[in-house]
């Protein structure tokens, strides 16, 4: 391995460790890690500053911010992974079909993608959630309805490049069906850029969920979503900045980490890319 590879690999491990410890673990293990019940309110402790038992203090309703932050990771994680999984499955399948079959199928699917991309993404998500009603499931649906386009376009482009390669021709010559060629011979060869795209997409989905919740269109009131916590803190920003800083920092940290992860993965997986 050359120097660039090891350096990139080290960065990758550091990022994975950070995300694992700082985001995945709290998200998955929230009920065991959180020191307090994130839903328990005590109005008498409204806006109480950080203390030993409550390291980040209380919000306006008197709920412990630290515990809510930990549970918030769970929501971001869930929405990020779910929205990206759904988008990726739909997008990659359609991209494969478009790229492999070509012709009017390709034309139709890509124009459909164009139509979706013509809308400003967040605005469309807001409109969708407004129509379907607020709630995390609807947020996931709205984000997936937008997210698949990026995957479809990327997959199609990669398929076009791989389609003409000899191992694909060989498989076709041996009489393999279209699905078999697409899934067994093409898909494994286009996974790397899709993985990079997925990492960016998770960052974008987490940010979008926070935005929608901030606007009151995401999780129902009371759910410890980072966006909603940020929105709660907005009204008391001057008196009690300790309410809004932690969720704000958490959103920034996680989104930044996923974006850097995407970059690092891109560097490592793409042999042609120079740093």
């Amino acid at each position, binding site marked *: 391995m050359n120097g660039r590879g090891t350096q990139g690999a080290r960065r990758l491990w550091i990022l994975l460790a950070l995300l694992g410890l700082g985001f995945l673990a709290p998200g998955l293990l929230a009920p065991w890690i959180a020191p307090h019940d994130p839903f328990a309110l005590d109005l008498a402790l409204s806006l109480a500053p950080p203390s030993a038992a409550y390291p980040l203090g209380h919000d306006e309703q008197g709920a412990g911010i630290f515990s809510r932050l930990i549970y918030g990771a769970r929501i971001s994680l869930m929405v990020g992974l779910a929205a990206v999984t759904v988008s990726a499955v739909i997008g990659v399948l359609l991209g494969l079909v478009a790229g492999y079959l070509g012709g009017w199928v390709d034309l139709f699917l890509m124009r459909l993608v164009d139509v979706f991309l013509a809308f400003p993404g967040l605005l469309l998500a807001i409109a969708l959630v407004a129509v379907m009603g*607020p709630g995390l499931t609807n947020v996931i649906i709205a984000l997936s309805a937008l997210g698949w386009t990026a995957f479809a376009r990327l997959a199609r482009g990669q398929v076009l490049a791989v389609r003409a390669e000899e191992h694909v021709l060989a498989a076709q010559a041996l009489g393999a069906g279209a699905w078999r060629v697409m899934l067994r011979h093409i898909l494994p060869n286009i996974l790397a850029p899709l993985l990079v795209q997925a990492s960016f997409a998770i960052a974008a989905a987490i940010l979008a969920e926070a935005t929608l919740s901030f606007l009151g269109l995401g999780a129902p*009131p009371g759910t410890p979503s980072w966006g909603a916590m940020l929105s709660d803190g907005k009204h008391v920003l001057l008196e009690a900045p300790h309410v809004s800083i932690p969720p704000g920092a958490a959103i920034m940290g996680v989104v930044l980490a996923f974006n850097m992860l995407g970059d690092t993965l891109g560097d490592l997986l793409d042999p042609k890319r120079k740093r």
Partner: protein
Amino acid sequence: MDGYSPMIRRLEIAMGTTRGTTPVMRRWLDRRTGCAPVLALVLLLFLPGGLWAASDPDELVVMLEAAPKTLDPVYATDAYGVRIAQQLIFEPLVQLGDDLTIVPALAERWERTSPTGYRFYLARKARFHDGSPVEAADVVYTLESLMDPVVASPYGPALRDKIAAVRAVDAHTVDFELKAPFAAFLSELTIPIRSRHAGKDRPLLGSGPFRFERRSPNEIVLVRNPDFHRGPAGVERIVFKVVKDENTRVLKLRKGSIDLAINALPLDKVAQFRQGKLGERFTVLEAPGLSYQYLGFNLQDPILSNPLVRRAIAHAIDVDTLITHRQKGHSQRATGLLPPGSPFELSGAESPPYDPALAASLLDEAGYAAINGSRFKISYKTSTDRSAVIQARVIQNDLRKVGIEMIVRSYEWGTFYEDIQKGNFQLFSLRWVGVSDPDFYYELFHSSRHPPHGRNRVRYANPRLDRLLEEGRTALDEGQRRRIYYEVQRILARDLPYISLWHNNNIAVVSKALTGFRLHPTGGFHYLPRVRKTGP
């Protein structure tokens, strides 16, 4: 020195170090004396204009939270529209007094001529703003036009239900004939009287203490009517300023560009106007009001139709803590719809006390045993208003302690209100304002008043209560009426279609430059004509 304020210098430094600044620009900025006037000018442009708005002793500036849709009394239904029309531009026959009794306005006095007949004697000196006298024919015109289905006034249906005829006896005497005896009739006559000569092009020609001058999206200006029959108002002009954002409202008031704000501040921002520097400039008046905050149940819901469940929920909610911490003590615990001090209020009535243990045992009794700490799920609808959402979350937290999983759904106001009217809800909390006569119980709980015919949104139906409410409408003897409504209150306290939460106090922040202002129980503008302003 050259008169630099630290602020200007900071701004300059910030600009000078901006990465994009060209060397030429930087040199220009470095010439301090040269750029000072420019920067000062820039600052002047951005400073709020109110800082220079000289406080005009002839002008009373009153803050509104929202712009009224219309001031035309035929169609105005929102609180500000009704108040400005009814109390300032126009004058009704009678008004609600400080002690919740009916007091004279355009009508100097009145008498009941039969169980269904009323005779009103108009003030002889009363004039419309165009100089024409206010006469019985104007009263007839006002009522008849409101009752005309073609006019489609929102007040039409209720008046048509009750009034058989309105007749002018002479120029200053008018007779009302009702279809049936109706005890609360006088409280329905706070309708602004309009001139029969005004026509369509002068809808705001009134006879009140102020004339309409102009309005823009964020401002309404009224000027004094010097010929008002009970003496001219204390100030030359009233300017209503609409400030939609609550933080901006606080800032504007602090800055001094507003003289008076009634119920327009967030409750946690009131205290600052009582202390320190602000306390020297403002007086905070606070008095019990006519609003009633309640929690409504959908009585057609399979779970909530069970009175044991409703009682359990009433015991599970810690209302006093909500009042202390969310209402900041600016509310009084309510035992029923009627405001404290109403002659019809059942004395000694108590709300179910906070008792989670009792709530849990009531739920067990109702057949909802806790499985893994959870008994059942219900949804609670609310608007997106921040305080309403926080209140919902606190109630959610209280109910969770007794094993009820409550999901809070917050909707944009239009959607929320439509759902409530349609009966598409399990639990919700709203507020009735301006409740004074107990006949309102009829509108809220009589079985004939289920939407869309009335406001019995919880869909309560009880033949015995129906009968009492009908008797209460027609009973003209005060004592008998009281006894009826005492019984109504007992039944409702037992059946709990609503859980009473609190009555909000009226809170006015009044500039010390004003004299003569008093809080009316409705929180309305009744006392603005008496206000005088002494200097800035």
